[in-house]
C-alpha cells in the first residue's frame, strides 16, 4: 500500500515538475547593459568580436555564417559581429519559445505572423525606441514605420523588411515607387504573326477572340504547343477584379468584402468563360511559379497574367532572340472603370526583433544599425564597393566587370559565392530602386516597360493588409475556415460548365460563408481597417473620384 502511495506521489511530482517547466517563468530575461558613446556611426563604437544568434523563420533560407564569403566577411570586419544563423519553420520557433530558449534576434517569416503579437504582448522582445536611444541613436528607421507598427504603448518592437516607407517615396519620387504584381503581358512578335492587335485585349470579347486565334493556330514552339494563357501561379479572380477596377475599399471609405463585389463576380465569370473556351491549359490550375517560368523561358506561353518579377525576359531572348513580351491594357469591365491595383505589401515582409533574453542587445541593435546604413543595405543586393560594384556618376550602381561576368553566366552561383541576399530580413526595397541603373539592354528596357505600364493605377493598400484577427482567437479560426472553404468553391465556380452553374455555386458559397460567422469577422476587419487609416491619418486609401 505504502509503495503505491509513494509511486503515486512520485508520479504527481514528476508531472507537476514537467508542467511547471512549461510555465511562464522559463525565460531568463536580461538587464540592459550600460550604454557607451563614441565618434562616427554607432556600429563602429564597439567592434570587439561578438557572436549573435539569429533564428530566421524562413525554411528556404539556409545560410551558414562563413567569413570567407565576401559579404559575410565584410560585415564581420566592419562590426566585429559573427552571426550564428539558424533557419527553419515558424513552428520550430514556437518550439523554442515553448522551451524558453530564444536566440538574440528572431526573424519572423511575415509581419502578419501571429507570433509577432505574442512576442510583443508578452514582453519578450525589446522595443526599438529604447534600444536605439541607448545604443544606436543614428539608426535609420523611418518614422512612417514607427507610426505604422506602434504598439499600444506607442513603441516599435521590430523592423519590417521591404517596408514601403513614405519618406523614401517623397525623397526619391523618380526612383522609388510602389511595386505591384498585376501585369498582363503578351508576345508581341506572335501577335503580328497571328493577326492580333494589341488593342484587341481591351474588351472582354476581343480578349477571348484573340486567345482563340492562338488556341486554334496550334503553333509548336521548341517542341511544345503554344499555350494561349498562363497565370504566374494559378487563376485568381482578385487580380482580374483589380484590373477591372475594384479597389479594396468601399466608396464611403469602409473596408470592402471583395467576394461580394460585382467586379469580383465578373472576374470569376470571365475566368470561367476562358476555361470553357479551352484557353486555360489544364496544368495552369495546379502550376507552380517555377513551372510557369520554365514555360515562359521556353517561349511556349503567349500571354501571362500576374507577371511578378523581371529577369525572365533574358532567358527567353536566349532561346528565341526575336521573342518579345509587351504589357497591354487589360479588358475593361462591363461598367467601365480604370484598373485599381493594390501595391505589393507595403507593410513589409519579414519582421525582426531583439529578444530580452539576449545578453548583447546593444550589439544586436548596432548590427541592425549597420545593416540599415547605405553600405549595409547595398551589401545585401550589390555586395561590396570596389569588389562587386562601383558607383556611377549619376549615383546609381553597376557591377564590376568580374561580377557582371559571373552574374551573366551563373546568377545563383554568383549570389552564393559573394554571399548576396544573406540579409533580406533587414533590407529596404527602396535601396534597390534607388541604385538600380537605367536600363541599357533590350531585355532590361522591355522589363522596365512592363514594370512601368500599370504604375499609374497602383495605390498603397497597407491599411487593408493588417486586418487579420489575433493569434489563437476564434475569429482567426473562423477566417481560416471561411477562406479554405471559399477557395475550394471558387475553383468550382471558375471551372463550372456554364455561367449559370458558376453563379449557383457562387450564391451557395456566399450563403455558406455567411453561416460560418462572416459577419462577425468582417465587423472586426472593418474596425481594424478604420483604425489603420486613423493611425496614418488618411480618410481613403484609394482615389474613388479619380
Amino acid at each position, binding site marked *: 500500500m505504502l509503495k503505491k502511495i509513494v509511486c503515486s506521489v512520485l508520479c504527481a511530482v514528476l508531472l507537476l515538475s514537467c*508542467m511547471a517547466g*512549461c510555465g511562464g517563468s522559463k525565460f531568463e530575461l536580461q538587464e540592459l547593459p550600460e550604454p557607451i558613446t563614441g565618434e562616427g556611426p554607432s556600429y563602429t563604437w564597439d567592434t570587439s568580436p561578438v557572436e549573435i544568434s539569429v533564428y530566421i523563420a524562413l525554411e528556404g533560407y539556409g545560410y551558414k555564417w562563413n567569413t570567407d564569403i565576401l559579404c559575410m566577411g565584410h560585415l564581420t570586419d566592419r562590426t566585429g559581429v559573427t552571426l550564428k544563423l539558424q533557419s527553419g519553420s515558424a513552428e520550430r520557433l514556437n518550439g523554442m519559445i515553448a522551451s524558453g530558449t530564444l536566440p538574440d534576434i528572431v526573424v519572423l517569416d511575415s509581419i502578419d505572423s501571429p507570433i509577432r503579437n505574442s512576442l510583443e504582448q508578452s514582453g519578450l522582445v525589446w522595443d526599438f525606441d529604447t534600444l536605439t536611444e541607448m545604443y544606436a541613436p543614428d539608426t535609420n528607421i523611418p518614422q512612417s514605420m514607427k507610426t505604422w507598427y506602434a504598439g499600444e504603448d506607442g513603441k516599435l518592437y521590430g523592423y519590417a523588411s521591404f517596408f514601403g516607407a513614405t519618406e523614401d517615396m517623397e525623397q526619391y519620387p523618380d526612383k522609388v515607387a510602389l511595386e505591384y504584381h498585376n501585369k498582363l503581358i503578351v508576345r508581341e512578335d506572335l501577335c503580328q504573326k497571328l493577326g492580333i492587335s494589341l488593342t484587341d485585349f481591351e474588351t472582354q470579347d476581343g480578349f477571348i477572340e484573340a486567345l482563340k486565334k492562338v488556341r486554334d493556330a496550334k503553333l509548336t514552339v521548341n517542341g511544345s504547343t503554344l499555350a494561349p494563357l498562363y497565370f504566374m501561379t494559378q487563376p485568381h479572380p482578385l487580380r482580374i477584379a483589380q484590373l477591372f477596377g475594384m479597389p479594396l475599399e468601399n466608396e464611403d471609405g469602409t473596408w470592402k468584402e471583395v467576394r461580394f463585389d460585382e467586379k469580383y463576380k465578373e472576374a470569376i465569370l470571365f475566368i470561367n468563360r476562358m476555361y470553357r473556351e479551352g484557353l486555360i491549359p489544364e*496544368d495552369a490550375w495546379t502550376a507552380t511559379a517555377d513551372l510557369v517560368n520554365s514555360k515562359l523561358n521556353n517561349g511556349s506561353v503567349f500571354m501571362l497574367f500576374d507577371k511578378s518579377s523581371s529577369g525572365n525576359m533574358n532567358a527567353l531572348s536566349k532561346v528565341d532572340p526575336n521573342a518579345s513580351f509587351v504589357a497591354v491594357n487589360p479588358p475593361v469591365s462591363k461598367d467601365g472603370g480604370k484598373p485599381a491595383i493594390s501595391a505589393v505589401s507595403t507593410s513589409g515582409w519579414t519582421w525582426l526583433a531583439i529578444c530580452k533574453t539576449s545578453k548583447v542587445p546593444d550589439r544586436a541593435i548596432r548590427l541592425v544599425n549597420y545593416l540599415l546604413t547605405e553600405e549595409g543595405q547595398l551589401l545585401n543586393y550589390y555586395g561590396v564597393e570596389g569588389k562587386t560594384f562601383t558607383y556611377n556618376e549619376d549615383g546609381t550602381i553597376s557591377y564590376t566587370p568580374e561580377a557582371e561576368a559571373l552574374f551573366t553566366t551563373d546568377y545563383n552561383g554568383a549570389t552564393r559565392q559573394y554571399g548576396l541576399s544573406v540579409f533580406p530580413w533587414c533590407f529596404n526595397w527602396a535601396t534597390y530602386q534607388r541604385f538600380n541603373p537605367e536600363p541599357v539592354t533590350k531585355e532590361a528596357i522591355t522589363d522596365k516597360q512592363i514594370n512601368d505600364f500599370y504604375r499609374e493605377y497602383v495605390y498603397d493598400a497597407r491599411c487593408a493588409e493588417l486586418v487579420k484577427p489575433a493569434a489563437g482567437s476564434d475569429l482567426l479560426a473562423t477566417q481560416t475556415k471561411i477562406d479554405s472553404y471559399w477557395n475550394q468553391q471558387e475553383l468550382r465556380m471558375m*471551372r463550372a460548365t456554364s455561367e449559370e452553374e458558376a453563379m449557383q455555386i457562387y450564391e451557395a458559397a456566399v450563403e455558406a460563408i455567411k453561416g*460560418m460567422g462572416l459577419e462577425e469577422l468582417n465587423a472586426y476587419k472593418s474596425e481594424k481597417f478604420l483604425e489603420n487609416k486613423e493611425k496614418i491619418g488618411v480618410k481613403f486609401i484609394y482615389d474613388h473620384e479619380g
Partner: protein
Amino acid sequence: MKKQKQSNEKLKHQMEIQSMVLPGVIFLIIFAYLPMIGVVTAFIDYDPVKGYLGSEFVGLKYFEELFSDWAFPMILKNTLGINLIGLAISFPTTIMFALMLNEIRSPLFKKTVQTVSYLPHFVSWVIFGGIIIQLLSPGTDGVINNFLMKIGLIDQPINFLGEEKLFWPILICASLIKGLGWSAIVYIAAIAGINPEHYEAATIDGAGRLQRMWYITLPGIAGTIIIMLIFEISGILNSGMDALLVLQNDLNYYASETIDFYVYHVGIGNFRYSYATAIGLLKSIVGLILLLTANFASKKLTDRGLF
C-alpha cells in the same frame, strides 16, 4: 502474498536478462509516455509564450469545434475511404505477392523480383510522387496522356491529378506500388519460419503447389496475418502525409484532404496547437478502440490476437 514473493524472487534471478528490456522501457517512457503530458493542450487555449499553466482552460471547446467544422464530414470520408479501400486492396495483394515470391524456384529471378519490388520503398515520396505527377501530367510532357491519345482512347489530355474521382485510385495504386515489396518482407520472413518437413509430407501425400500454399503456407503465417491486420485496422485513421503533400493540389482537395492533413493545414499551419492536439487525441482514442475491438474479434474468431 506468497505468489508475489515468488514472482519477485524469480525476477531477481532473471535480473541480467530482464535488464535488457530497460533501454526499451526508458525509450518508451521518454518518447511515448512523457510527451502524453502534452495531451493537456487539447483542453486549454495553448499559447507557447504563456506555457501550459498560463494558458486558459477551455474544456472540450476544440472537440466541439471539430464536429461542427464544415470540413469534418469530408476529411472523415476521405480518411476512411482511402484507408479502407487501400487496406482491402493492398493487404491481400501483399500476402499474395509474398506467397508467389515464395514459389519462385529460380534464385536469380527471385532476387531480381525482390530487389525491384523493394526499390520504390527506398525512394522518397518527393521523387516517387514527382515521377507520378510527370507521368500523369496533362501537359505535352505527360507520358500516359500522350500514350492514350496516340492509341486513340482519348482526344483531349486528362488532368488525372485534377479529377477528384481519380484521386483515391491514383493514391492507392501509387502507395501499393511503393510499398508492396517492403510490406511483403514480414510475410516472407514468416513463410521462411515454416517447417520444411510440412511441405515434404504434403508433397508425399500428393499435394500440389496451390494445395501446399493453401493448407500449409497460409495457416503457417496466419498468426502474422492476424497481427498485421490488427495493426492496419488500428491505424485506419492515419494517412500518409508524404504522399498527400506531393500529390494534393487545389483541384483534388475535396478527395485528398484527410484528418492528418487537415490537422497540418488548419491546426499547425495556423499555430492552433490546441485544435490540432484535440483532433490528434480523438484520433488516438478511436485508434485504440479499433485496436482493442479488432483484437477482441480476432481472439473470438480465430483464437489469435496481440494480447
